[in-house]
Each structure stands twice: as C-alpha cells, then as structure tokens.
C-alpha cells in the first residue's frame, strides 16, 4: 500500500501492469509457474501453425500484388497472438473476428480457399461450413465486439460451457462499441473474451495518440471485468492467458479483456507505406522479438524443432496456398441474380423483377 499513500482514498487509482511473459527473447522460460500444460506434440503444433501462417502471409502479399487477391491485411509479426489465442479455445467456442484475423478463423476450421474467396470479394468466402464456429471477418471497427457479446449471452442462456472470443486492435479500443460491449459483458457476467491486439498503430495513428489510459487492459476495470496484459510476441503467454480466460468464462466467472502487445511487421494493408509513420529503429527492435524465432529457440533447446522442420512446413504451406488460390480462382463466379436472392429468405416481388435487368 505504501506507493498509494500519497493518493486520496476518493481517487480511483490502479497499479501499473506488467505484461505476462513466459519466454525471454532468447527462448528461456522466465516464468515456469505460468507455463501452460502442453505436450511436446502440442508445442510442435503451435510452431507448425506459426510457420505455416507466416509463409501463407508472404504468399498472400505476393498474390495481392499480382492482383489474384483483393483486400488483404497482412499478419506477420502477430502469429503468436493469433495462433496462440485460437489454440487455447475448444472447437465449440465461437470467434467473431476483424478483417486481419483470418488465421484464427482458418485454424478454427474455415477452409483456406474460402478465406481467399473472401479477399477476392466472393460471397462463398462467408459461407462458413456447418460446425465451424466463426463469423465472417468484420469491416466496421468494433462491431464484432457486440456480436460476441450476444453469442456469449446465447451460451449463457442455454447453459452451454462455451465462450465467445472477439478481436480488435488498439484503434478499435477507442470505439464506443468496445466500451458498450465490455460493459454489457460485465453487467450480464458473460462468457466472453475480448482480445485487443495492440500492434501500436491504427493504420498510421500511433498508440500514443489513441488513448491516455495507462494500458488498454486497464479499460476492463471500468466495466468490472477481468483485464490482463500479455506479451503478444510470446505464444506460450498468449495460450496461458486465453486458456485462463476461457476457463473463467466456462465456470461462470465472467468476461476477460486481454491486451496482447504485438507488432505487425508489414503495412496495415497492401496500399500503405510504413516508412511514413514508423522508424527503422522501431521496426528492427520489434523484429528482434519475432514470435517464431523466439519460440523456435525454446523448441530447439528442447530438441523439438530443427531448421529442416521449418523448411518442410514452409513447403507444405506454399503447396497449400497454391491449392487454395487455384480452388478459389476456379470457383464459379457470383451472379447478380444470386446476389439478389441472398438479401432475404424469400425474395420479394420487386427484387425478383430487378433480376430482369441483368
């Protein structure tokens, strides 16, 4: 209490938060007590998925430049946040993603070619297969936060041991929908997990201009839900935090806000230039925290992963991306008639008539 002595009791105050870290940048375990319970196979699976996703991202950026993909938001740098947070879920848990969160919904079950179709502006990209518990990527920043809130309420009302998880960024945490969603989750004690991937920039606007809050995790305090801050470049820390939050949700202990401190190595989208708003020094500082290198060092020490493994996974990923883009390109094109019929369950007469113009 000593550090609070000089504060008045009628002032709201909170201590600083230190991000949850399990691995040092050198891949040493610095917090053995917090280590999530994962088998060697599971550890290897996490690495597999991160390497796969990095390769897929590299290929997707190239496909975008060739005009074979449409809007695409690169993910490199955020693999620990994305892969770790999805890996901590059960298949029955439900993901409400933003547009950059393709890896989470693909690893949750959406076929890769559908992710590419979504990027290419094809409606089939959003036709989530039966049994895959995700929504389509959200474009309106923060809107998905409220959908996750509703999904979580559905689980609670039906007494199902499931959680809803949603993702936004540091920019998204300034939206009204963010505060409203957290507040509802607090008031109804919902099994929801609100993940903020704080990658430092909302397109070009830096975190320093986004908020005066001590951290994004602190925003949980006002909503009366649990807030945690996590090293988002440390996949084990991410798995730990999300597993705990999911456990809390399933046990009826309410919602959690998780701030993941991360960085996107690439631009916001394919049409943005990072040199206009980030320094080389900052970029290289974060590159040294590369989640794949860091986790790779840990696995290497345990004798679970080699350079050859990485090379093999990269080849697998390239082949999978090739197959997926070919399948996406071969998918029958949308028609205006089909579009019209997707507006309502039963197409009203005036819309039916409008088909004649096409």
């Amino acid at each position: 209490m000593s550090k609070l002595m000089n504060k008045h009791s009628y002032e709201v105050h909170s201590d600083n938060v230190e991000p949850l870290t399990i691995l040092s940048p050198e891949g040493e375990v610095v917090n053995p007590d917090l280590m999530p319970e994962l088998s060697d196979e599971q550890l290897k699976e996490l690495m597999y998925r991160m390497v796969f996703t990095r390769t897929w991202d590299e290929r997707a950026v190239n496909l975008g430049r060739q005009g074979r993909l449409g809007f695409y938001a690169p993910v490199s740098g955020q693999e620990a946040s994305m892969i770790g947070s999805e890996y901590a879920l059960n298949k029955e848990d439900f993901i409400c993603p933003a547009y950059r969160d393709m890896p989470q919904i693909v690893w949750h079950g959406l076929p890769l070619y559908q992710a590419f179709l979504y990027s290419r502006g094809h409606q089939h990209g959003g036709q989530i297969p039966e049994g895959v518990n995700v929504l389509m990527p959200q474009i309106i920043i923060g809107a998905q936060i409220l959908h996750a809130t509703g999904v979580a309420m559905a689980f609670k009302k039906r007494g199902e041991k499931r959680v809803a998880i949603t993702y936004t960024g540091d920019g998204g945490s300034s939206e009204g929908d963010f505060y409203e969603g957290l507040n509802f989750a607090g008031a109804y004690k919902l099994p929801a997990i609100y993940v903020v991937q704080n990658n430092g920039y909302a397109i070009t606007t830096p975190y320093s201009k986004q908020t005066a809050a001590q951290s994004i995790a602190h925003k949980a305090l006002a909503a009366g839900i649990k807030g945690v801050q996590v090293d988002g470049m440390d996949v084990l820390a991410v798995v730990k935090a999300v597993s705990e939050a999911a456990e809390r949700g399933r046990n009826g202990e309410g919602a959690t806000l998780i701030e993941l401190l991360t960085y996107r190595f690439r631009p916001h989208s394919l049409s943005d230039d990072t040199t206009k708003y980030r320094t080389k020094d900052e970029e290289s500082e974060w590159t040294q925290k590369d989640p794949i290198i860091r986790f790779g060092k840990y696995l290497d020490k345990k004798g679970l992963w080699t350079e050859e493994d990485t090379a093999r996974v990269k080849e697998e990923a390239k082949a999978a991306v090739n197959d997926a883009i070919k399948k996406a390109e071969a998918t029958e094109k949308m028609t205006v008639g089909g579009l019209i019929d997707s507006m309502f369950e039963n197409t009203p007469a005036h819309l039916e008539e409008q088909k004649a113009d096409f």
Partner: protein
Amino acid sequence: MAQMNMLEAIRDALRTELKRDDNVMLFGEDVGHTGGVFRVTEGLQKEFGEERVFDTPLAESALAGMAVGLGVQGFRPVAEIQFVGFIYEALDQMFVQAARMRYRSGGRYNSPIVFRTPFGGGVKAAELHTDSLEGLAMQTPGIKVVIPSNPYDAKGLMISAIRDNDPVFFMEHLNLYRAFRAEVPEEEYTIPLGKANVVREGSDVTIVTYGMMVHTSVKAAEELEKEGVKVEVIDLRTLMPLDIDTIVESIKKTNRVIIVQEAQKTSGAAAEVIAQINEKAILHLEAPVLRVAGPDTVYPYAQIEDQWLPTPARIIAGVKKVLDF
C-alpha cells in the same frame, strides 16, 4: 374477441410468440421490470421470467448488436429501441450488421430480429422522440419495414415479424398506442408482410398512406364524401416490401392518387410509391400524383407540431388538386 388498444394488441402478439417459441426473447431499456416506458411489455417479465424478458444497460448500439449475436445463435430477439431518434446510435448494428448478415454469409447466418420502436408526432413528446425514419430503413437493403395503423393489424403483423427469418424494423406510432380500442382475436393469426389493406373503398381518387395518417386520411375522406367525392384509402402496413399491386389495382379504378405521409416530403416512402406508380400505372393516370407530407425541416418542437403534421384540410386540398387537374 377482446377489445384492445394497439399497445395491448402488440403485447398480446409478444405474449403469443413468447409462449409458442422458447427462442423468442424481449429486451431493451426499461423493457423488463417496468414493461417499457409505454408499458407495451408490462407483465411479460413476470410471466416468462428474467431470462427471456429483460432490461439492458443503456446503450442502443450494444443492445442491437447483442441481438445480432443472439440471432446468429438461433434466438429470435425482439429488441426495443426506446424512442425512434435513438436508432441513430444503433444504425450500424440494425442497418449494416443485421441487414447484411444473410448476404455476407451467403445464407449461412441470418438475423431473425424485430427492432421495435415507438415513433410519430402529435403527442407533444421531447425532441427526437417523434421523427418518421422509415425512409432510412427503406433505403437499406436487407431489412423489412412495418408500420401498423390499428390494433388488429398490429397483432397480426407483429406475429409475422417475429416469425420472419430476416430483420424487421417495426415502428409503432405513439399517437395510436392508446387512441382507440378495436376487436382483436385472442387466438394467434398472422397478417403477411408486404400486403396492403384497402381500408375504405371509393372510385374517384386513391389516398395511399400508413400509420397515423390512415386515420387523418379517413377523416378527410369522410369530409369529401359529404361533397360527393368517393375516396379510396389504402393502408400500406408494410413499406418494405411495398405492395404496389394493390395500389395499381386501385389506380385502375380511380385514375387519381395522392400519397399522405407524416415524414418529410423529399425522398422517403411517398417518393418511392410515386416512382413505382410511374413504372407500373402511368397510363392509368388522369393527373400527376401529389404528396401531402411534412415540410423538409427537422421535426419541430411541440409548439407547432399540429401545424407541421398533415391535417384533413391539407389532405382535402391535395385531393382537390388532383381532381381538378
């Protein structure tokens, strides 16, 4: 048969559906314990429990967005927006998120949601409680727009709206909640969405209208009857989809038509009805189609709302213009 006002008829519809389908749930600001600021949902929490009829924190975007998430999971939410002007806070969730769910997911998900809201002038309410915002919704692909004008229709339309697998914006005119009682069957019945109603038959001129203006138009028609003018009055009941066939049938008989709406004149429902008449019935017209509507201002403070809203006198003047053309 029971005598009910429109508010009681809506409550009866909500009760009917809560009983019939466990997935139906009602929520909104003050909806649960108190039964809403107009008591439309009064007693329903007691009858069906807090799990299904409940209050929300005060945030329209969140309550509408929560409805979208619940809808994805198979619930059928009836979400109340306390007053029509508050829908601006929820426009993204209502008109983007709910309305596009079926399209964005290629039919995998849908939004079986009813967004209820009171609206409409003439009751000296506070600012932004009375605006007629149906035109905004009519321009939004993927959402239906329903406005009942009487207790019988209100019950049948609400039941249809709740059973519809697409989102419905259900607007309840404040001036009609307790205006009069009418016979309403106690058993369930539906009135199909997209079907207009000829509330008064006539052969000289057609008035196309909806909501409170049905009653103002009937008053005008009764006055005109004394002068020997036989006016047909059509109550649209659903603005999206619009029942143009019933309007065209009437025009074939009367050859003259005016549209009466409480909303501002430009764009909106009346403009859309005229556009469709132009496409489907222009050769049956003996005169241009006129609009009697509010002027293109903000809905005014209570002091002058009675002058602002269309009156029987303005409607009669409009009818005479098309008769004398």
